[in-house]
């Protein structure tokens, strides 16, 4: 069968199955199990209403339990066993081994660098773009352009930037725009940017900042629009200059949204894998935890250390996730 038809069929079966499930399960509940008739009509309605939320939530709870909760437990178990010994329990040996690996500490250091720079830069650029595009006629076009990278997959973006950072031998014409500009500005010879230790981390981060700025801009732009215009006018009358209005009147009023954007990007950053995998694969001191995990798990076939690093990532993400959800809910109220 043509793959297109297979896809279509999958969609029809999937969506139809969902609709059918909700329709028929509710029918059974209302018509067969607890019909709102007869002696116990009132009690039956109450019972049906008590059960109904579980009908709606049930499939999601099952799916999330199977694909999220169970893997956490299984990963924890694997991180305490050793494959070479046939899956025997080894306690914290995998963790001890990992903590002695320089590559692991390099990944931790790089993750912290990403953590410090990417959310801050994305939020700052996003806020700047939101403020600058707020009142101009072509603001919406500018916003669309800035938002567009959000639609590109991380791997796609990585490929684009790999071309930007590309280096060709000195006597050949450069196809990487960065080297072309560099040579034009008087650079001696083309630089293989992605192999320059430490700085190559920043070159990788640029990709994620490029993608996430659009996200930050859209959310913050909506928040800026929500600020009552009169508070800004009151500040003008009070004698505030544009910078004071921005930093002392506008920013404090959207601080909740800024925190939500910041933490959301932070979580994306902690999970960053595709960009590093596609551009350097962790070479030249650009390793990050997610790529380290992949290396151990699927290249070195060492499920113990791989799972242990996965647990570390989860431990780092969880508190930020909790804070993020807490702030997002506060914003909604």
């Amino acid at each position, binding site marked *: 069968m043509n793959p297109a038809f297979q896809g279509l069929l999958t969609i029809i079966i999937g969506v139809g199955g969902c609709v059918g499930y909700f329709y028929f399960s509710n029918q059974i509940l209302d018509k067969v199990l607890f019909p709102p008739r007869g002696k116990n009509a009132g009690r039956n309605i109450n019972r049906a209403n008590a059960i109904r939320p579980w009908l709606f939530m049930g499939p999601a709870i099952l799916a999330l339990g199977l694909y999220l909760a169970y893997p956490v437990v299984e990963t924890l178990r694997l991180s305490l066993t050793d494959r070479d010994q046939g899956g025997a329990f080894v306690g914290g040996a995998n963790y001890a081994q990992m903590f002695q690996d320089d590559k692991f500490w390099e990944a931790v250091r790089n993750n912290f660098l990403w953590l410090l720079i990417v959310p801050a830069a994305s939020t700052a650029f996003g806020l700047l773009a939101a403020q600058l595009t707020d009142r101009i006629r072509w603001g919406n076009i500018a916003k669309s352009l800035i938002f567009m990278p959000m639609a590109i997959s991380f791997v796609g973006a990585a490929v684009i930037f790999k071309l930007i950072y590309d280096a060709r031998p000195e006597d050949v014409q450069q196809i990487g725009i960065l080297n072309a500009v560099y040579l034009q500005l008087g650079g001696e010879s083309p630089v293989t940017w992605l192999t320059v230790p430490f700085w190559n981390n920043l070159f990788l981060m640029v990709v994620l900042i490029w993608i996430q700025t659009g996200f930050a801009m859209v959310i913050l732009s909506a928040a800026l629009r929500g600020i*009552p215009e*009169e*508070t800004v*006018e*009151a*500040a*003008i*009358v*009070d*004698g*505030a200059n544009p910078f*004071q209005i921005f930093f002392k*009147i506008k920013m*404090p*009023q959207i*601080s909740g949204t800024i925190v939500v954007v910041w933490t959301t990007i932070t979580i994306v950053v902690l999970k960053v894998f595709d960009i590093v995998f596609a551009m350097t694969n962790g070479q030249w001191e650009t390793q990050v935890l997610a790529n380290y995990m992949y290396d151990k798990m699927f290249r070195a076939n060492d499920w113990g250390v791989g799972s242990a690093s996965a647990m570390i990532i989860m431990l780092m993400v969880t508190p930020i996730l909790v804070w993020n959800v807490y702030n997002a809910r506060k914003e909604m109220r």
Partner: protein
Amino acid sequence: MAEVSVKNLRKNYGAMEVIHGIDVDIADGEFVVLVGPSGCGKSTLLRMIAGLEEVTSGDILIGDRRVNHLSPNERDIAMVFQSYALYPHKTVEANMGFSLKLRKMDKAEIKKRVAEAAEILGLTPYLDRFPRALSGGQRQRVAMGRAIVRDPQVFLFDEPLSNLDAKLRVQMRTEIRELHLRLQTTTVYVTHDQIEAMTMADKIVVLNGGNVEQVGSPLALYDRPKNRFVASFIGSPSMNLIDGTVREISGGQATLVLGDLTVTTPTRPGLTEGQKITLGVRPEHLSLSNAGLPVKVRVVEPTGSEIHVVFQFQAQEITAIFRDRHPLSPGDTVHLALDMGQLHLFDGATGNRME
């Protein structure tokens, strides 16, 4: 403190002119109310005085300074907004002190000024609170406090009471008035509520469609409205306006025909036979009698202290106010006498007052 004067002021939005050459003079220490229906340009005028809207042409003077091109801050004015526009992330104290802080005033001095203003407004116990923890009336006071601490030359109020409930509105009306008596600062106050205008103003400026209709003290406007618009806008319930024609002028008396009815009144200069006119009479200048306007009762609205009665007279409505509790009920037919000394005559074509 200073006088404010607006000279031949115009405002365009694109090709549309919304204010058509307005002149207003406000004396030092005066409480002036700009009043008019929605879209009459009163808020635009206030915002131009504040410096929040550009002046298209004409001049605005505060004191002796032409302020057209000065920023709001340089005009030495303070403004109270309809929604109060309090900074939600600042405490009451910080809200009130923000403008002083921006001026880099000494911290102790700021604290002193804020404390004084809070004392005047009864806000002392709330200085550490955030606006979200205050009631509507308290927020309103904070907004005023923010204006007071600056000790400006002019206060500008943009419909400050319209977000409050009816009872609080009456109370705040009195408080703002008292505050003005105490501070004697020149005040420009915008409202669409003519009762607010009547009760608060030293001088009312009635605006309509971007033009000044009349300027004067509340009672002058009430007693001698310059045209039909002011007559119908000022006063609640509004003045009854009955269209008619002049049949005959003789011996200093004019005979007016109002549908089936004729009324004789002393003539006025400019009145000619056959002219179309509008006769105006305030609801309180009508009384029940055996002869006069034959009318049918439509609705009776007791307010307690008086009753408002809506009558049908020929094709139009007539409202009367009685202090006595006449036993009227819908459908009754009665006669109304006009208080002949209190009639207003307006030219039918121009709508201008004739006297």
